């Protein structure tokens, strides 16, 4: 086995976990780190300049998701914070309407933990199951939703299995019976077009970093008329919904990143789709190897698999020796040692859920990397299967 050398070209395949800031975006936002450092709440020139930059960014984010106007955009510090504000902010504000909340079985942990916390606070919390491709069961949604359901939270697309949810249909059901639909669009935004008005979304979570913007900014779209309260108390920035001095650099970068994504997404997604399809067709040729998630209703940059008889953290470490960085939903890569709730929810057995590999593509990837990746995956799977007592 060859161990990695310093001159090996690294191949990064984990864009769902971390994304480099686009250098154009960095140049655009850089002045707000050093020269234009004013606090947007200050009334002298430097403050006004910073405030204007934040407002320009707000307009760009609104356009990016076709929001009715920029006042619907609230900047936060992260997608986790946006999810907290959306769910806890609407639940507590509308407590007189009902005390029910609803979410799917495959949501991000920040959504699930908000729901669990509401449950501790007297709300009733139900989980909508998904099918074996990870698509939300619309019939179950209809059964579970009532007029007392304040907020239903369903992600636009799943980060671990790439499945795109039928948001328009979900919106129809939610609005026929219940109240607000919150959509976590972190995995989908910048990969597929999102239109909050056409899709019928009341609250939408975005992350800056996932758009090639700086870490440290997120946004929440709050449709006009949605009743919501803050979860952070302080100076009342962001229409009172997110107190705390604005991270101007990250917000300006997020706006520019969204603007760039709007212009380049179509071409970039088509480019990544070709790489994705080639990877899927080659990797699923390996014996006892299966695609996870939906084969068609799938994010264009996303390829996820499971391999029988081997464990995901071993796959990750072994691939890293080839300089190839992938993700896994394996229990052993997490501190909790619990297998991925997403993989269990699509019906995988525990031992199957342990053997997963997630590839999320981005700007640094190209078709010429495919044979290198496929070769490394084949050798990794073969080597680990030789060690495995489950292979008889």
């Amino acid at each position, binding site marked *: 086995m060859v161990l990695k050398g310093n001159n090996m070209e690294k191949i990064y395949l984990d864009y769902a976990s971390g994304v480099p800031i686009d250098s154009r975006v960095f140049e655009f936002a850089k002045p707000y780190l050093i020269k234009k450092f004013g606090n947007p709440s200050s009334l002298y020139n430097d403050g006004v300049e910073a405030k204007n930059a934040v407002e320009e960014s707000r307009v760009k984010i609104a356009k990016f998701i076709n929001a009715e106007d920029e006042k619907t955009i609230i900047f936060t510090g992260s997608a986790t914070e946006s999810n907290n504000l959306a769910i806890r902010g609407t639940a507590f504000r509308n407590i007189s309407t009902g005390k029910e909340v609803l979410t799917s079985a495959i949501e991000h942990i920040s959504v699930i933990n908000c729901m669990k916390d509401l449950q501790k606070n007297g709300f009733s919390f139900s989980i909508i199951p998904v099918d074996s491709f990870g698509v939300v069961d619309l019939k179950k949604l209809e059964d579970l939703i009532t007029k007392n359901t304040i907020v239903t939270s369903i992600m636009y697309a799943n980060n671990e299995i790439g499945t795109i949810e039928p948001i328009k249909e979900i919106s129809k059901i939610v609005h026929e019976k219940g109240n607000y639909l919150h959509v976590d669009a972190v995995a989908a935004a910048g990969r597929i077009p999102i239109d909050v008005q056409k899709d019928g979304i009341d609250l939408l979570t975005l992350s800056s970093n996932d758009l090639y913007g700086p870490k440290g900014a997120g946004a929440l779209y709050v449709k006009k008329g949605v009743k919501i309260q803050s979860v952070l108390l302080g100076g009342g920035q962001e229409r009172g919904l997110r107190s705390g001095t604005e991270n101007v650099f990250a917000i300006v970068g997020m706006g520019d990143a969204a603007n760039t994504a709007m212009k380049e997404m179509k071409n970039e997604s088509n480019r990544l789709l070709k790489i994705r399809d080639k990877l899927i067709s080659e990797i699923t040729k390996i014996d006892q190897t299966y695609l996870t998630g939906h084969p068609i209703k799938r994010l264009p940059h996303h390829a996820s698999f499971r391999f029988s*008889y081997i*464990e995901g953290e071993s796959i990750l470490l072994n691939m890293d020796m080839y300089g190839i960085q992938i993700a896994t939903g394996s229990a*052993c*890569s997490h501190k909790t040692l619990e297998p991925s709730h997403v993989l269990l929810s699509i019906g995988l057995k525990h031992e199957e859920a342990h053997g997963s590999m997630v590839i999320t593509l981005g700007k640094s990837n190209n078709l010429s990397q495919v044979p290198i990746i496929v070769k490394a995956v084949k050798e990794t799977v073969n080597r680990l299967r030789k060690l495995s*007592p489950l292979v008889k």
Partner: protein
Amino acid sequence: MAQVGYSKKVMEHFMNPRNVGVIKNPDGYGKIGNPVCGDLMEIFIKVKDDIITEIKFKTFGCGSAIATSSMVTELAKGKHVDDAMKITRGDVADELEGLPPHKMHCSNLAADALHEAIKNYKNKKKK
């Protein structure tokens, strides 16, 4: 500073594990863990005059599960079975220059699988 990730020694044993395989008709056999939990280890030993002359393992599990299996076979090879029984999880982790805290249970499994194989040998010997 708290340990982040795996030591070089763990990675070296993960990438180049010693004593991989099975022994047909072993004098002792131990199996610990469960694929449901994400770890399964099998250890096979050949014993002559109470000395472990040959030892092999197969492991399904994470990087530290594979590295600890490899290390425990290295530690036990050539030892008297009574001395090999005294190999602890701590010994395995120390020889690997430490394991992250949430991975310590892996070293436990490796030592347990070895102990199971030795117990199995001793039981067979009684009969």
